[in-house]
């Protein structure tokens, strides 16, 4: 009997599956090559670059105003915050002090962007776990924010509201009212999210203890944002290196220690409350003044290098500019949060099942253009 078994090589073999580039739960064109033993994952190998657009190379030929517009094609869900990173770096290099009004407006829109990104994440996360209804609930509420953006910034997704030195134009007269309406509305709706998913037994079982990431690993992998904070890695740029109006508002950095999918989930939900809290503090106190300081048509940065980090919905986004005094940077590097977060995926998913991998990926909240750039 033994011989027959050996002759026929009946022993279980690892086999490979291509998850993506077209797959419903990779949220874009991410390709993962999975080594599987039955349903258990032995290795996850990401293959990137399907939408690599060489943005960094393009930046070496563009003026700084143009670069701003490239950044919201990366992490399109936190486009405003990405824009802001470049603007802040340029303003810092030029030693430009933007008016208070700009600071406050930028902060409000940052937080609205974060809210809308988390709403979308929440919907998609439910859909990844098979609860399709949450997808439409998330989008229903996100719609209100995109409407506000449309009115004020002129676009719904890639807004381009920031320019070096301030904002493209002043806020729409309705902005304050609509934002306040939205906050009042969403405060009623956010508990609904908990009713639908957070308190669901199946959902809890799917998330609890899955995809654990320890604090040391989170730091070593450079996992930031809600994902890192769920592992106990205090990495909120808004707290550690406050920019814009974050030093004058009161908010909590959401930290958890468990580092599993459910902790990441709870972190994001709690962040939504914090975001609303921040907006509430600022929305009635937008100072009067200019919405931009004039800059030259061709911005030339002095020789030197600057690194500016901001907190996007996914984590720490960094812009590293090396200038040689020209109208375009000598070298420009975007440190995108998704790229580092993705590097921890293999570590987290080993030994899990395929279904868990989907849960882990959605709690990582990957945006593929952000990774490929």
């Amino acid at each position, binding site marked *: 009997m033994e011989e027959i078994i050996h002759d026929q090589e009946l022993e279980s073999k690892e086999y490979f599956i291509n998850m993506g580039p077209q797959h419903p739960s990779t949220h874009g064109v991410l390709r993962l090559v999975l080594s599987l033993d039955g349903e258990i994952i032995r290795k996850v190998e990401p293959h990137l670059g399907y939408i690599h657009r060489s943005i960094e190379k393009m930046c070496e030929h563009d003026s700084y105003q143009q670069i701003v517009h490239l950044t919201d094609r990366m992490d399109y869900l936190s486009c405003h915050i990405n824009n802001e990173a470049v603007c802040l770096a340029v303003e810092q290099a030029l030693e430009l002090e933007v008016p208070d009004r700009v600071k406050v407006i930028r902060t409000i829109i940052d937080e609205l962007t974060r809210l809308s990104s988390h709403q979308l994440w929440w919907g998609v996360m439910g859909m990844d776990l098979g609860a399709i209804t949450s997808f439409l609930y998330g989008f229903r509420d996100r719609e209100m924010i995109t409407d506000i953006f449309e009115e004020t910034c002129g676009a719904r997704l890639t807004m381009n509201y920031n320019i070096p030195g301030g904002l493209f134009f002043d806020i729409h007269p309705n902005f304050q009212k609509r934002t306040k309406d939205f906050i009042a509305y969403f405060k009623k709706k956010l508990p609904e999210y908990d009713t639908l998913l957070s308190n669901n037994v*199946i959902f809890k079982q799917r998330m609890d203890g899955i995809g654990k990431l320890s604090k040391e690993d989170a730091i070593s992998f450079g996992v930031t944002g809600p994902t890192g904070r769920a592992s106990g890695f205090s990495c909120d740029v808004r707290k550690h290196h406050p920019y814009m109006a974050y030093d004058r508002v009161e908010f909590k950095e959401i930290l958890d220690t468990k580092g599993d999918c459910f902790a990441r989930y709870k972190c994001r939900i709690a962040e939504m409350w914090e975001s609303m809290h921040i907006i509430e503090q600022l929305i009635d106190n937008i100072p009067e003044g200019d919405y931009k300081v004039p800059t030259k048509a061709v911005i030339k940065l002095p020789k030197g290098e600057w690194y500016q980090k901001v907190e996007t919905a996914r984590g720490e986004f960094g812009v590293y500019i090396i200038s040689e005094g020209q109208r375009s940077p000598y070298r420009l590097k975007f440190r995108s949060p998704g790229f580092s977060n993705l590097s921890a995926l293999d570590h987290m998913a080993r030994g899990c099942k395929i279904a868990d991998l989907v849960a882990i990926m959605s709690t990582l909240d990957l945006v593929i253009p952000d990774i490929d750039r």
Partner: protein
Amino acid sequence: MNWLYDFSILTQSIHESLSGNFESGTVLLLEMILAGVAFMILFALLGLVLVYAERKVSAFFQQRLGPMRVGFWGTAQTLADVIKLLMKEPLMNKNADKFLFNLAPYIIMIAAFMAMASLPFAKGLQALDFDIGLLYISAVSSLGVVGILLAGWSSDNKYSLIGALRSGAQIISYELSVGLSLLTIVVLTGSLQLSVIVESQANGWWIFRGHIPAVIAFIIFLIASTAETNRGPFDLAEAESELTAGFHTEYSGMKFAFFFLAEFANMFIVSAIGATVFLGGWMPFHIGGWEGFNNVMDYIPPIVWFFGKVGFMIFMMMWFRWTFPRLRIDQLLTLEWKYLLPVNLMNILVMAFLVLMGWHF
């Protein structure tokens, strides 16, 4: 309009008129063909209605309207989709086993078709009334899994294969719970014959008369039958976020529609069994002593009662699907083997004890 309350009048008259014109063998054949055509029409209608219902129900759960453009309130949407599916190109992988690939959807359809044959739709409206009706249905419904396994294997796609293996494990496990929860009521009725089960509920549905064990059995039946039809939250075999579309990833056009149709037909069948066994089939709702109320209830034709109950069960299953996240495969099996099955076995014992002592109503 009497035939609406007792279909045997209608079937008898058809039988007599046929017998007058043909010899007995031909009559049998003609009747078989007639019944077959009737079931096919029912099948098609179910597909049309249930697909539309699912879309509308899901839409209302999700605070949207659903299909609204084709026909009044989108009623012709399914028809349009059928035409679309008919015109689609049937694709197949190069290495796919062509024979089995084409066979698989038919096996699933045939299994659903066979199970439908012994459902009592109304008084006197039942094609096959075996004395082992329930056993027959569970036997036939166990054939459907073969189709899923074949579909998954013959597509030559690893996602399909995983989906097929998942669904195999799932259906084989949950069949036990479905069978046992039905047996709990069989202990009460003392018969497997569906018409007898319905008749025995003339004075009250078993879910009311069977005390708590019947309610437990009903809940287990709801869970297990949802799992057996591969519907959310137990749709691991399809699991679009994990396996793209599971066992029918490679299917397109009409063959895909067959899988789709079979899913809805299976949903109808398990709902019909549930309605028959637990909710009194086509028996109206009666409350002892309320004569007037009972008369009003009697006025509603049995077939309406039957489809109403089935509709209620189907609505429950849709509700599950559009509310819950999907389980993981190990959780699914844990639920069955560690919770449902032991509870079920205990439940049968309790029920048997109740019946022995004569404590049920």
